[in-house]
């Protein structure tokens, strides 16, 4: 009996390749100026799901993302890499969601899929860097969670238990818990597999059939006979039975009051000699002003 795996992914602006106009004048991210990419740690989470699927025959990998229609690209990429089912959770009423409203919507979408054994997501997204959505989703689902994992040490589908290695400050620890579980995966393990050329050609024209009135139930799972149309499910707020009050702006207690621009200047750089003594002095100084230790 295979496991039902659900991977939560996010499309993010590529903050690693910042160009000149990456910030708007008000200090917020100018999303239009940055290329949109698959959140890097989410790719590791997806790979972790594939690894589990490879070791437990009959397992299925479902991928969910919440975002605007353009976020369909990360779902296509998931299909190219081997996902069995993908769904876009998209509705204007989800807009401006903070981590609380996002995790609520994701929880509703996961429950729409029904039974599940392991939910996976990247530890954090490179745009918000909160690392809150995974843990909050687990709390809302009322299931166990192991965060910041880089390795699955043991998985026993019969006994429904899992042991994962998680990163902690200065080292690692192994944590064992029962299924269902939510895992947040960091970038240390599970190097992502590349997209497959054959799957890419199969799914590149996949659409969500946005214009259809009853699109909420439109989805297909992968299969040999599948061509490419309408392979991406589109779920709106009604499709996942979410309460509009708990979604988007109205469901988000986080309010941004002000954003300060911090410009790093090269002032204050001090060169020290490359001798043991000079480096020792510097370390003492840093310990004294609590930069270190």
């Amino acid at each position, binding site marked *: 009996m295979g496991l039902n795996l659900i991977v939560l992914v996010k499309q993010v602006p590529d903050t690693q390749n910042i160009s000149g106009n990456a910030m708007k004048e008000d200090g917020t991210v100018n999303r239009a100026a940055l290329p949109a990419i698959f959140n890097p740690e989410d790719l590791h989470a997806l790979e972790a799901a594939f690894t589990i699927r490879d070791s437990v025959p009959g397992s299925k990998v479902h991928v969910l993302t919440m975002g605007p229609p353009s976020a369909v690209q990360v779902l296509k990429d998931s299909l190219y890499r081997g996902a069995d089912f993908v769904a876009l959770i998209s509705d204007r009423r989800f807009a401006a969601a903070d981590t609380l409203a996002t995790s609520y919507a994701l929880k509703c979408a996961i429950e729409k899929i029904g039974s599940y054994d392991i939910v996976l997501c990247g530890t954090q997204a490179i745009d918000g860097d909160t690392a809150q959505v995974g843990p909050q989703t687990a709390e809302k689902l009322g299931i166990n969670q192991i965060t910041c994992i880089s390795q699955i040490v043991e998985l026993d589908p019969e006994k429904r238990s899992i042991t994962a290695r998680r990163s902690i400050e200065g080292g690692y620890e192994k944590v064992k818990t029962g299924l269902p579980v939510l895992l947040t995966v960091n970038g240390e393990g599970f190097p992502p597999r*590349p*997209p*497959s050329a054959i*799957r890419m050609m199969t799914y590149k024209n996949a659409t969500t059939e946005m214009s259809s009135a009853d699109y909420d139930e439109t989805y297909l799972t992968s299969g040999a006979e599948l061509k490419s149309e309408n392979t991406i499910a589109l779920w709106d707020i009604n499709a996942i039975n979410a309460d509009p009050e708990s979604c988007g702006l109205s469901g988000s207690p986080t309010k941004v009051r002000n954003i300060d621009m911090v410009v790093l200047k090269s002032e204050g750089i001090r060169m020290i000699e490359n001798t043991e003594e000079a480096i020792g002095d510097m370390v003492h100084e840093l310990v004294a002003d609590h930069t270190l230790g």
Partner: protein
Amino acid sequence: MENFLKDNEDILFHLEHMDLDRIIRLREDDFKNSDNAPHAPADIADARDSYMKVLDMIGAISGENLAPLAADIDQEGVRLTKGEVQYAKGTQQVLDIFAKADLMGFCLPRKYGGLNFPSTILTIAAEMISRADASFLNFGLQQDIGETLNKFGSEELKSKYLPRLASGEYGSSMILTEPDAGSDLQAVRLKAHQDAHGNWYLNGVKRFITNGNGRIGLVLARSEENMQGARGLSFFLYERDENMVIRRLEDKLGIHGSPTCELQFNNARGYLVGERRRGLSKYTMWLMNSARLGIAAQAIGIAEAAYREANRYAEERIQFGSPVKSLPAVFEMLTEMKIAIEAGRTLLYETARIVDLKEGLEHIKELYPDRADQINSDLKSYARLANMLTPMIKGYATEMANRVAYDAIQIHGGTGFMRDFNVERHYRDARITSIYEGTTQLQVVAAIGGLTSGTINNALDEYESEDYSHAPQLYKRLLSARNKFEKALVHIKGIEDAELVSYHARRMVEMATDLVQGYLLLRDARHAERKLKVAETFIEKMATRITMNAEFILDGESSLLRNYQQIIG
């Protein structure tokens, strides 16, 4: 994110303007999708879109995964441990990526797990990979061996081995060269004999076998005991077992990541591919021509890498108060390098396109024998053209890569001589390209027939039937250069002294290559102002080279032929 497709404007330029319609129709049999594959294209636009997307994937793997490992692969090299070859860690890592990305059956039919892409697209992929790491040959060569098997093997062999090649489960090699049979493959001695049940067995030694550790190999062997020369040779598929021993790995100047093996066959089982006695004349020649296109692409990839290193260094290196790129001696070198690469690329794609048309027509002829009459005349002219252009581009691109890598070190000065910089690796890697799959001298021998038979004239007539109103003066220069070339050609055809013809053959082929590239660059100039500048600068120097070569042939005294024995003994 480094991407060797996205950062290469010249490849993107060609991809945009390349005429692929007929190739795609032939290859896809007018989109009938008889194998019912979900990834088959629906139309031309769909196919082109897939080509772009797959090339983009390879550009990303080349730039992000392979290029950063190339120096380590070069340093680590390959090892022979207990009779088995171990690749460098980086090589294995990227091979795994290629296999997982379903890229190992690039040109193979979809029913065997391939992508069914044309050679034109493969050459672009091969260039990008080689720019990242020239030793990453397994990918390129694998295609040739798979394709040869696909074209000439029995259905039994094809369905057994092609899916395994396409998935990357099996590596492969072409096993031709022997200690006493290098350029002269007619002298191959490795023996193939049949037992009472009709099974074939191979005995003998092969040398300089690239990736000879591959799980399967195509072996050229003497199947007819009493028959000397090419007619006694047949082609065999061999699958690795204990009856073949890898005796040693060569310690080479370059492409350290690629294992070059000496193999000893001790009564190893072989499977006949195609018909007996056609081993060299048909199958090896086909395989060689296919591989030559790959080596030309590899050479252009190395040249591109070396040029980029040199250009960047020339911009950063300050001497006499300014970047050395501002010095005429340096910017001339860089400009020549860039033009030489672009001249190579346009000829490479033209050649690949012709090869694809020829292969596509053959494919359709096999599918629909009743259409043979319609197809034959086109097929014949594309086959002739392919046979001339393939050695031309192999010879040109590989010599050019050596020159470009040489100049790239020169621009670096003493720094370029040091191992810390990449150019010395490009220089070492380039060196083999003008030797393997036939030396440049053999490419001249292969191409000269296309000149004396008139194929070149037909090709130039064809180019002249196009519109050059965007550059009438340059077109006039081309016509004048052609005129000089043809005078030399007429002269050569009238010579009965075989040694004298052979002496001038290299110059003749170089002139023809120059001319074809002149027309192609001027054709490219139709789409971009910058290309017009490239064409202008190329044609100016090319016309002078043609004048020089023609004068040497027409008015020269060939004193070398008279004097060489007294000079070198």
